[in-house]
């Protein structure tokens, strides 16, 4: 399913290791840090309703817009083909952050990437850095970055999306 492999098998394996590490930390009595991450759990169930895209723009920008949505539903080979869900996978070591020359994308200690819109110059370096195509420039020329807020999850009628907790 092409780009739908946003959650790759390799990623899952790594994640399992991380979860195990966290659990053993927990066993040692330390409080594990967690962050929430949007997961494209079942891309093959997508019906192409774009509910997620509208939820993202409606809830995060207060408008209806496809351009300003952080999650993108693409079609490969038209609607007869497969839907591809393109969204940030919350990389451990995010290349978009490394590519950003103005400090607009910042990785927090817990692994979240926060976007400081006022610092974004619209240079598009993050766009080039993310192979998935999960970060792009919106209508106003500034980056649109998924916050892993989960708003889209509630508007997906086919259980394609999930919000998961991953170790920080």
């Amino acid at each position: 399913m092409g780009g739908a492999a946003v959650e790759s098998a390799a990623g899952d394996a790594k994640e399992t290791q991380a979860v195990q590490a966290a659990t053993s930390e927990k066993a040692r009595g330390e409080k594990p840090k967690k962050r929430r991450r949007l997961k494209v759990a079942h891309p093959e169930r997508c019906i192409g309703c774009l509910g997620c895209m509208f939820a993202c723009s409606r809830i995060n920008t207060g408008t209806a817009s496809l351009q300003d949505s952080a999650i993108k539903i693409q079609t490969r080979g038209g609607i007869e083909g497969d839907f591809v869900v393109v969204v940030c996978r919350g990389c451990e070591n995010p290349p978009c952050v490394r590519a950003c020359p103005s400090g607009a994308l910042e990785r927090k200690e817990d692994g979240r990437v926060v976007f400081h819109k006022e610092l974004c110059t619209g240079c598009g370096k993050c766009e080039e850095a993310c192979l998935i195509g999960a970060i792009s420039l919106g209508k106003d020329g500034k980056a649109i970055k998924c916050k892993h807020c989960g708003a889209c999850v509630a508007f997906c009628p086919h259980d394609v999306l999930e919000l998961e907790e991953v170790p920080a």
Partner: protein
Amino acid sequence: MLRKVLYIDLSRGESWSIERQDLFDEWLGGTGVGIRLLMEECPEGADPLSPAAPIILSIGPLNGLFPVATKAVATFKSPLTSELGESYAGGRLHLAMRFAGHEAIVIRGRAQGPSYISISGGKVLIKDATSIWGVDAQTAGMILREHEPGMGRRSIIRIGPAGEALVRFAGVVVDTYRHFGRLGLGATFGSKNLKAVVVSGTERAEVPDARRYREVYNRLYAKTVQTDAMEKYHDIGTSVNINVLNWLKGLPTKNFQLTSFSEAEKISGEVFADKYLFRRLSCAGCPIGCVHIAALKTAFSPHHEFEVRKVSYDFEPIYSLGSNLGVSSAEGVLQLIDVCERMGLDVISAGVVLSWATEAYERDMITPQETLGVPLQWNNVQGYISALEKIVKAPNEFYAALARGAEFASARYGGQDFAMTLGGNEVAGYHTGPASMLGQLVGVRHSHLDNAGYSIDQKAAKKQLSPEEMVDEIIKEDNSRGVFNSLVGCLFARGVYTEENIIDALGAVGIAKTGEDLHLLGKKIFDEKYKFKTREGFDLSRARLPGRFFKTVSTLGKVTPETMEEMLRIYRKKRGWS
């Protein structure tokens, strides 16, 4: 939101856009704006296939903003009936128009050679389509996808060879699996040398109060997914009605000679769902996913080599190309749908034209010379496939007559009694009783969806309704659908959009309306449409009711001519037309 109309003149190769707030204030959007623009643009008595006859595409204030407001409407002068042409399509066109910033698009004139229109935001180009002229609708879509910008947010609407050949019931394929099917818009495209229109844009739709917008959205969304308001469209889809209507004796079979089909089990929605369904899809902005896609697997050699075609199905095509033609296999129905899809033919009209021809052939009103040796027989799928291909190629007078619809062909060859049209339009898959007949006869576009008479009959089957009560319901639907179709919502969601919810949703996008305003608007839109219809020669007092309707038992028993006369009289009186 700027409320603009984009004008495109194919003869002059020019386009411009005009802000027309007044038009949208008065007529709301969608079908309201569509009929008003048709009145402005279409000269009285214009030949529907001449450059003078316009095409109007419009959306409404809720498209792109609210769940299941997923349609766009095309308004034109119908090449099939020579009066009001109106057709609705889902898919992505409504979104693409919203984000391109055009709530209405008027296409005038005729291009010099094969062309397509590419609209990308404010940029409008008329491009050469010579290389895709003659190409089937599916392939043409694939080719344009490669050439045009806006992946993931564009809409591609195009005709197949039937539209190019001016078949009077050719449709326009919208994106994939959706259509402006009815009343011949495809022929209008063809007459303008217009193969396709591609629309995309990156505007955003702003609302005055984002919080209020989200609040109303959430309420409508919850009603859409959590209540049973749309349940029947979820699971098996509309084709669940094959078994239901068959059982109710309302499923037209073999050109309405019967209303139950002995082989219905084999082409039921359940069979399609269990054996052929492989995916469901949604129009953009709808969480339901009612579009059912079947995989049609056919062997093309004895060595386990297969071709797989993905065909969308619904109740109507299973009726028109299935029970109505006595076709008793799901594969046969899918093959026929697929041919219509590629040629770009309206499935309902295609099926009803073929069923009339089959009966006329059976009764020796048509000779094998005329059919060029094609056997037109119930359940003969191969025969029907070659007949459909010949309708598009029109190699002789007989097929050319079929290409003009059942009304025309039966006037020429006889058999009007069993030419199943109302108002010149081939009828939908219901013989449920008088409300279905009256509804399609008086409806603005002679469609079962004008007022859903079929559902009024089904209501009457449970709880007796007097002729007057039926007429009242028809009038109520006629009018209220004018408003809903101005928004432009999917009729499957009409249960979600109660008057209250419509008022709230409009309020959230900054349009203040009262219930009274909406009632008046619904009536006004209906009247405006009838003004166009009468101007173009439609006369309800002379409208033809095929005798077959009275001979074949319906869900409500045999309908008598007297009942129909009475209902028509009541209808006219209530409309103030006596």
